[in-house]
């Protein structure tokens, strides 16, 4: 995307040029350039929240759209995600300090027996980019691990991920346990993973199946807004 990368000195670009350049750098998975761009914008007085939403999330949205449309493939998305992670590492402590808007809190992890976390990691990062607080439980989570974290973190959303046909039924075990304990209505339950589909999500009693990270973010925003609205009416 940016063949003349070596000739560009980021610090010499004004904001209107730097942000599009960061979009390009994110697209190309250039972590060091993204870290430098973030530092430059912060040095120019940008708030951490603006750097996150206008430079990083804006760039990752393009990456996500091109992945959805078959223009980019998994390796390139992972490189872009790795670059964004570099920027996020700088921004995260600053976001906490500056009291950036917090949309909601999500507990996320892959289900028991499943070690495939690439999709889960992308969702977690994009959710953070959208202003959600994300508690990442990692891989191979039992029903107790999910329920304990939901309670301890006072979360709004449970996100479960599975790559295997053999592990995806475990999502129903978790949801059924929530129902048994009378906790199901306390949480928005989102599920995702390659072998899943909308029909499966409905069949196991999830609130929604999310086919990719961008959809997960939009779905989470919609459900949180709905929850807040219904809370306000009650």
């Amino acid at each position, binding site marked *: 995307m940016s063949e003349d990368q070596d000739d560009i000195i980021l610090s010499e670009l004004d904001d209107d040029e730097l942000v599009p350049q960061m979009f390009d750098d994110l697209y190309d*998975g250039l972590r060091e350039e993204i870290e430098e761009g973030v530092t430059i914008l912060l040095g120019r007085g940008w708030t951490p929240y603006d750097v996150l939403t206008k430079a990083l999330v804006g760039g990752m949205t393009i990456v996500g759209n091109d992945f959805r449309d078959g223009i980019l493939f998994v390796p390139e998305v*992972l490189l872009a995600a790795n670059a964004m992670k570099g920027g996020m590492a700088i921004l995260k402590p600053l976001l906490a300090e500056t009291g950036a808007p917090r949309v909601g809190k999500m507990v996320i992890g892959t289900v028991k027996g499943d070690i*495939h976390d690439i999709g889960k990691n992308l969702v977690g990062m994009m959710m953070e980019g959208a202003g959600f607080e994300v508690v990442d439980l990692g891989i*191979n989570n039992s029903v107790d691990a999910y329920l304990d974290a939901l309670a301890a973190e006072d979360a709004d959303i449970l996100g479960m991920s599975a790559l295997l046909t*053999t592990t*995806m039924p475990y999502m129903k075990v978790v949801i059924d346990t929530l129902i048994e304990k009378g906790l199901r209505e306390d949480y928005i339950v989102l599920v995702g993973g*390659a*072998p899943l589909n909308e029909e499966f999500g409905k069949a196991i009693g999830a609130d929604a199946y999310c086919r990719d990270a961008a959809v997960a973010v939009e779905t989470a925003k919609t459900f949180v807004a709905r929850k807040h609205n219904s809370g306000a009416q009650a």
Partner: protein
Amino acid sequence: MNLPSDDMLTTQGLLLDHTSGKVLLIGCGALAREILDLKAANNWSHLDLVCLPAILHNHPERITPAVRAAIEKHRSTYARIFVVYADCGTGGQLEALCHDMGVDMVAGPHCYSFFEGNEKFAANSESDFSAFYLTDFLVRQFDAFVWKPLGLDRHPQLREMYFGNYTKLVYQAQTDDPALTATARDCAARLGLAFERRLTGYGDLKASLAALR
């Protein structure tokens, strides 16, 4: 018949091998060699075979539509069709299709399971869930199915992101081939994983095909 090259089986599959007109097997190209070997060894001349491109393994969402098209193409010629795929990442969609179209398929979640034996594979799931599996075909086609599609030829730094949670590579050997074992061992080294070889033979595949009359 002359078996096409592995590259052809990956990208093109296998054309109908001959026409007994009795039972048609619609299989994954990654199983062509094994199915034809079983046919020859057991003189199952009533079984005809057509294979879809093996690379569908990397795109499970394309398997069900491709199998549907193959069934529709051949069902007027065959009284019985048998699908030589397991679930293979279709999330139950292939099973639903086979049920709707009145055809049977191989039981199990994937070829790794039926090669090892579905019961045994399920019994070992607690200890083996962090294993990355390769079959004979996938060892021979490692670059086409793993290394290049994951971009590891261009971006070796991604290896940890893909394979960091795996603990070992299990080579399920259908045949006892020292050269192939050496290649499989090399695949494990390239992925930074411990290596284990299990001589499975054809596992449940043989019983599945033997039941077809």
